[in-house]
């Protein structure tokens, strides 16, 4: 029988929730890495027992953790063996250094600060880890200040893909309220050379050569906080999502506006339709229905909670514009939590399961594509990310 493993990153540790295919009884294991911020955990599609985690702290910086047994035990790649007596350092599993070498890198120069003044590039943390679809030892990492890194040795060492930060528009990128983060990485399952990434606040970028070169793909986006609201660069994209069977169609939750592209980002159209507010963070696509999309509308950019204190997931079965509220099992009064950009995911069972975590520490799950919801856990630390593994 299939099982589902939900990987939850929180402000104070990681939790792993498991259930069988009925998804009605859950085992909760954790906290792993108690006291640290876990921005993201994700399993390898090529080896589901291989899981990577981004562990960070304002005090002690960035750590990458890796499990090879489905999250039971963890090690820092390259640092797991105690040297005897004192071998040279094993490597740089937690070392994310921008490539400024004349041979392969780009000068760091500056990006824009909130007020438009130049600001030097500074590494803060890893926001998102995206394991390769085919190789358990290859993982992409999206970091703050925005850049894309890759490991090909299971996380022991990381190298920047400098063509993104240095492709020409980096000096006009600007941080969103959460920092200047590269938060989304989408790998095209049909084309190993195609990668999409998204940055707050720069926009969406696409590579068609495996990450060597990049182009911005933001035509059709409109952001009123920019001097030129339709400029190619500067949009605060909160999240993009893809259905693997239709990788040219992307859905986007922008700072304001829910958007869709049918041509791999060459042009975008708004699909906010009848949503009560088109601000939000999370967006994801049904595992079996490429036109079924879920979002969690949030009141505004200053009021980061659901409108009217009612926690509602909205679902479109038409690829956008027509949205229905999903409320059964979700609090419909006095609810003022947020759902962050990486905190929604789906399983691939039938019917499709949908999961999301809140800043109030709840993780909600639905085993019927959102028709009915129930809390899996209610009292975790603030949830930063939710990923799901469907295990056969």
């Amino acid at each position, binding site marked *: 029988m299939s099982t589902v493993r939900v990987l939850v990153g929180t402000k104070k540790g990681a939790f792993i929730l498991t259930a069988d295919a009925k998804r009605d009884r859950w085992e909760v294991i954790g906290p792993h890495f108690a*006291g*640290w911020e876990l921005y993201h955990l994700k399993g390898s599609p090529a080896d589901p027992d291989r899981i990577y985690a981004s562990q960070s*702290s*304002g*005090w*002690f*910086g*960035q*750590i990458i953790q890796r499990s090879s047994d489905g999250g039971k035990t963890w090690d*820092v790649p*390259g*640092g*797991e063996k*105690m*040297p005897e*007596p*004192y*071998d*040279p*350092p*094993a*490597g*740089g*599993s*937690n*070392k*994310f*250094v921008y490539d400024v070498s004349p041979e392969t890198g780009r000068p760091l120069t500056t990006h824009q600060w909130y007020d438009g003044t130049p600001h030097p590039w500074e590494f803060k943390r890893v926001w998102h880890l995206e394991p390769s679809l085919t190789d358990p030892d290859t993982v992409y990492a999206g970091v703050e200040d925005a850049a894309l890194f890759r490991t090909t040795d299971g996380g022991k060492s990381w190298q920047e893909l400098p063509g993104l930060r240095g492709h020409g528009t980096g000096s006009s990128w600007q941080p969103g309220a959460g920092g200047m983060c590269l938060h989304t990485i989408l790998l095209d399952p049909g084309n190993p050379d195609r990668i999409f990434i998204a940055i707050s606040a720069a926009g969406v970028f696409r590579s068609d050569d495996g990450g060597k070169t990049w182009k911005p793909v933001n035509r059709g986006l409109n952001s009123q906080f920019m001097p030129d609201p339709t400029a190619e660069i500067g949009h605060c994209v909160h999240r993009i999502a893809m259905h693997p069977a239709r990788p040219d169609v992307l859905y986007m939750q922008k700072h304001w506006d829910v958007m869709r592209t049918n041509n791999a980002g060459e042009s975008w159209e708004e699909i906010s339709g009848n949503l009560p507010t088109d601000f939000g963070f999370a967006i994801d696509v049904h595992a079996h229905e490429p036109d079924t999309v879920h979002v969690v509308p949030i009141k505004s950019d200053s009021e980061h909670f659901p409108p009217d204190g009612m926690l509602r997931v909205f679902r479109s079965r038409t690829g956008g514009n027509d949205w229905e509220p999903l409320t059964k099992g979700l609090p419909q009064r006095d609810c003022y939590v947020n759902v962050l950009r990486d905190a929604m995911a789906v399983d691939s069972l039938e019917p499709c399961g949908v999961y999301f975590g809140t800043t109030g520490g709840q993780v909600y799950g639905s085993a019927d594509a959102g028709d009915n919801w129930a809390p899996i856990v209610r009292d975790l630390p603030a949830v930063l990310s939710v990923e799901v593994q469907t295990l056969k």
Partner: protein
Amino acid sequence: MIRVVLPPHLKKLAHVDGEVTLHVEGPVTLGSLLDTLEAAYPMLHGTVRYHVTLKRRAFVRFFACGEDLSHQAPETPLPDAIATGAEPFRVVGAIAGG
């Protein structure tokens, strides 16, 4: 042997209980102690000092024999009591926030 007390988060990361003991080759300075610590425990790279610059992380402090050595240069010799192991060298997370 030199004794080093790590903050709880770093002890857990390094898989150690209690104090860390180190043998430092050559003069015992702030820099050579930290070099040896990172060589012995590679997972601590970047957690006490920044990568590349090797400067102390902003929210980390160094105490020894009742003195704050956080702002000393790397080549600063450590007190004899640290070099002989009579007193531990303390790596402390600054008390700010939670």
